[in-house]
């Protein structure tokens, strides 16, 4: 084992942070698994009067935010200040739009007269609410990464904040896709 594991260089420090974030995200994957189990135990395979278009758009916008974040990470690692600032801005906007669409879906679903206490109603609000909570956190960390980037210029040796925010957004976008599949389709 190399000495740098004792007094970590920036590179091994980055590896340990990446590893830690990977462990965090793997642990968070337990939550969608639990929710999917609850969904089938309570509401079987029934699907309520949800708006498929809104669901698809919310999931796709999450993926777009993650894609833009990945591009921003690349720009940050090359020290392209204008590039990562703009890309992070669009990533935040996509995540916020995804949040807005989920809220619109909530209002539309409530408008159909389906009770929140009905089997599908409660799994709908719980699963989409969890998705919403993750999106809020992801939008916040992307926003924080952008603000930080304006004060502390990212570069080849300093882009962990963008990378962490992007990895989290990527995880959230997958949660969105899985939630859409199990809540709106299956």
């Amino acid at each position, binding site marked *: *084992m190399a000495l740098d*594991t*004792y007094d970590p260089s920036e590179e091994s420090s980055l590896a*340990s942070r990446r590893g*830690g974030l990977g462990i*965090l995200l793997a642990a968070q994957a337990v*939550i969608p698994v*639990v929710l999917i189990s609850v969904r089938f135990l309570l509401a079987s395979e029934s699907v309520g009067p949800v708006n498929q278009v809104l669901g698809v758009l919310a999931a796709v916008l999450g993926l777009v935010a993650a894609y833009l974040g990945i591009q921003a990470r690349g720009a940050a690692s090359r020290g392209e200040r204008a590039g990562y600032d703009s890309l992070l801005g669009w990533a935040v906007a996509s995540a916020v739009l995804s949040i807005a669409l989920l809220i619109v879906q909530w209002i539309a679903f409530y408008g159909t007269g389906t009770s*929140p206490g009905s089997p599908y109603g409660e799994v709908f609000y719980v699963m989409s609410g969890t998705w919403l909570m993750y999106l809020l956190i992801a939008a916040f960390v992307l926003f924080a990464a952008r603000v*930080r980037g304006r004060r502390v210029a990212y570069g080849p040796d300093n882009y962990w904040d963008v990378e962490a925010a992007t990895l989290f957004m990527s995880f959230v976008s997958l949660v969105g896709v899985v939630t859409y599949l199990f809540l709106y389709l299956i």
Partner: protein
Amino acid sequence: MAPAMRGVLWGLVAFFVFNAATLAVDPSAESPYASQVSVTVGWFAAMIAYLLGIGGLEAVARPMFGLSDTWREAPGWRRYFGFSTDHKVVGLQYMLASAGGFLVAGLVAMAMRYQLMTPYLTIFGSTSDYLTAVGIHGTIMMFSVATVFMVGGLGNYLVPLMIGTNRTVFPKLSGLSVWLVPFGILTVALSPLLGGFTTGWRGYQPLAGSDTNGILFYYLGIVALTTSSFMVALNLTTTIIFRRAPGVTWNRLPMFAWGILTVSLLNLIWLPEIQITYLMNLAERLVPLNLFNANGSPAMYLDLFWLFGHPEVYIVVVPALAVWNEILPVMGKKSLFARPVAVLGLVFVMLLSGLVWAHHMFTNIRATEQLPFSFFTEMISIPTGFAYLAAIGTLWRSRLQVNTPTLLVLMSMFNFLIGGLTGLFLADVPINYQIHNTFWVVGHFHYTIIGGMVFSSLAAMYYWLPKFSGRMFNEFWGKFGAIWIFIAFNATFGNFFVLGLRGMNRWVPVYPGYLVPENVWTSIAAFVLGAGFLFHAAHLWWAWYRGEKADENPWGARTLEWQTSSPTPEVNFSRPPIVAANFYSYGDDAPPVLWAGDASHAD
């Protein structure tokens, strides 16, 4: 202003402001001062403000937005009352917070035992009040003591030292997480302000649905406490994987670090599971939903709770098993017997712990479902036995130094054996039907948790006291206290088995008169046990400040934490330790642990 004071003040202000603001727009408010929603919103705001006030504002929030980190730790003892990134400070903060939880929950237990000296209500106004006490006792003990003391306290302090690093991977994470422990304890302890809760630490549905709003503080308190444990698990797992010193291979990883790694993996899997379950409970209460009530599926709640609840037992106990095999080779000056088997035991306990949960529900499930859970429950005793195998093999023909840590380890082994054997009865379905929800069950899990984890924690405190404080305890008083609590513990909880077999049910403050004499003796023994724990606390406190100066490595141990000066210096290792041999090889021909050219001792 001290950071802790500032945190409390900001938390209080945030609670009142957000409670009032939510109340102003909440159409469901059932009182002019608070509603379920306003209290919940106020609590979350208070938690964030409190963490910012502790030091999170300067050390975490500002740097997150690109501003400079303006946090400066206070010097001396005052650093223990604020945010810190030093794993040793964080470890001691965890130990103190957890000990505070032990005191609060222990005093509640004393009140319960006082009540049970008579077969009718005395100090509790109603059965609900008694059940609230049971719930506060169980919740604080499980989530802030049993889960926290060894992993958050000893783990944060010792693991970086044992693997030869100066810091953890995410020091700010643990620096914040420790402050969630007192916050969570206070939240649960204050639940009577909202009416208390009658479900015990398990939050059983559909009973919880008919509880008063006190159940909110039960859910929220657990969210805070489990978040703290999750953050610790993440930090320590990452640190063990990525920050081991050269030569600390997986084959050489210290037993205690193995114990912490295995329970941290359990925490990483099961804490998110129970957190989302409690958040669903919270949503059920606030919206309201029908997830777990009679219109939903109460059985689903039982499954979700015990999916976490039984691994929780191993989260509590596995570090204790590791402590046995950490201390015995040192005190016996004999190489650890069958080390790979001992490690495999810890790992297989971790793996099997997720397959036994439904044995808590034998009375609720079909006969075809009982068999596999009965089978796996009995099977898990095999890897647990590996820890015994290693310990007993190490003890065999060793030159054992029977001092206070050794004595406490041997006592812990005896107690845990009784806990394990009585658990086998519960794993057997026909017997389980007869003794389900009796004091037998209570006796069984107190033997595993207090008998296993608390005795081992005390052993660890005495063993590592010279490392923590640079001072030595008094051997006579240490042994005296150990024998005191051993006798009182067995008199208390041994009686629980007798009470259970004679028909004493859990959860009842009112019981048949023929059980009075047994309950009176049990309560007296419990008071003596409580006094015994206070005695140990006082002795350790005295030894920490007034004990004799200890040698740097008074036990002649080989693990890395003893290769630095005692008490541990500010910087653990001034130079990288390079490990060249096994930590548990003793005898004249044992090679030196550190590479010959290494001089890692701090000045």
